[in-house]
């Protein structure tokens, strides 16, 4: 079983960290993982994306043309990935910032108002966690507990005070229909 996930949005939205957290959790669960960022002469406010592959088998190519899952945090990312998701795949849309609606009927689409969810919980910057929660509710590649444990294991001391809030937003995203 191999799942490829692209997470894309603006720099500063926590796109790269969300991907790393998935990779950490996959590794902690004993799976093979790769995480590869788009890197370029980019800065906060520019576009950022990363590809995460979580697999029971050794992973060949760390990049994919058609991901199983695309998590799009802003409009340009929606436009870029809406037609690239593999048939049968999942498109997770941050409907706080994306106004378009997916016209495809061969993929599953979910609209999560991630900014709102995170803001209501107390910190809009945690919108990435809301989407990760929503992802795990729809693709149980890892359990919510595994992801939470990886937060505990890999979040640095300077961010430790945000741990509980991170978990809360994850859970809100997980329960979001």
């Amino acid at each position, binding site marked *: 079983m191999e799942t490829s996930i692209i997470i894309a949005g603006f720099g500063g939205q926590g796109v790269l960290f969300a991907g790393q957290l998935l990779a950490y959790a996959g*590794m902690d669960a004993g799976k*093979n*993982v*790769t995480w*590869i960022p788009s890197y370029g002469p980019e800065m906060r406010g520019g576009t950022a994306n990363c590809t995460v592959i979580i697999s029971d088998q050794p992973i*060949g190519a760390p*990049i994919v043309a058609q991901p199983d899952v695309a998590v799009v945090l802003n409009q340009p990312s929606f436009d870029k990935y809406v037609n690239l998701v593999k048939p049968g795949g999942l498109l997770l849309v941050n409907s706080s910032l994306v106004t378009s609606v997916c016209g495809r009927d061969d993929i599953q689409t979910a609209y999560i108002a991630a900014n709102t969810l995170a803001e209501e919980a107390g910190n809009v910057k945690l919108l990435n966690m809301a989407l990760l929660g929503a992802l795990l509710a729809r693709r149980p590649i890892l359990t919510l507990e595994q992801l939470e444990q990886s937060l505990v294991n890999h979040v640095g001391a300077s961010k430790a005070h945000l741990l509980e809030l991170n978990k809360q937003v994850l859970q809100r995203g997980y329960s979001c229909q």
Partner: protein
Amino acid sequence: MSKKLMKGNVAIAEASVRAGCEAYFGYPITPQTELLEYMSERMPELGRVFLQAESEVAAINMVYGAAATGVRVMTSSSSPGISLMQEGFSYIAGSDVPAVIVDVMRGGPGLGNIQPSQGDYNQITKTAGHGDFHPIVLAPASVQEAIDLTVLAFDLAEKYRTLVFVVVDGAIGQMMEPAELPPMRELPSGRPDWALTGAKGREKNVISSLFLGTTELELMNKELQAKLAYIQANNEIRYEEYMTNDADLLLVAFGTAARVAQTAVQHLRQEGLKVGLFRPITLWPFPSRRLTQLTYLADTFLVVEMNAGQMVHDVRAAVHERVPVHFYGRMGGVIPMPEEVEQKVRELMRVVPTEDDVQTHQFPVKPQAAHEFLRM
């Protein structure tokens, strides 16, 4: 020891520290900079030397100087920076001192871009500097292998008193994978007997690449060539094979291109196509003999690279025209997708018609495959 999720650049840096690197000289350049950045913190912490030079030319000459004193030394850069270092590589080779160089390749020529590339293959394996020499060139395809080969690079450099390159493309430098680091080695207590350590109480050592007499210089060259021949003959050739046992078509690729090719093999095998992958790990010495053997197994070769076709010439030289050697590559910092490689393989195995087939109204030539195609 447990696995850690590590970025290739950082993994190479820590691996070199644990392999006993005592001095690092470098100059920042993307997509390699995390390596230098990591060393800038780690080396002083251990009381070792980190120095950001004023240029790549300065950095490689500092490497040369440190190497002459017998310490384990390295530098790292990316393609344009590696070009600048060439004079120094040649001096190091001409002086028989050990040094480790890491090249995290980016798109060229010129300033190019900062995306992953394998465009330095020829530069490093064939023309790393003026005069006749080859460095040993190690090409990892994963973060774990980057760690293992970095450690090996220091050992080989010291064993043969030679330049050893670890070459990755920007993707492996930037990618994170779980990997295990080796234990920290103790630094050596003494220096090799050829090193410049102050000649107190012994005959003086001379480290130089200047041999003004033709006789002397030819002799020095003969010795250097004998050393290179010894390296080639001395089991330093490394490669990996994936599903080659019954392969009709053999993919040949290194680094990230090999990862892509491996995924292509998995997909094509599911279609019933007998495809295998041969991955050179040492780009010099090149695993020519094994490739020659494999021509008795596979009847078509396809080389996949992230350049215009560089290693393909070594593959062609190795197979002596016994089988056709085709090429598929992407340039400009583009990583080929497995689907592109798969399509090329299907065309070569005539499972689908090629552009030429369509234009000349030819059907696929392999009867069984053609049957499958017509059923589609």
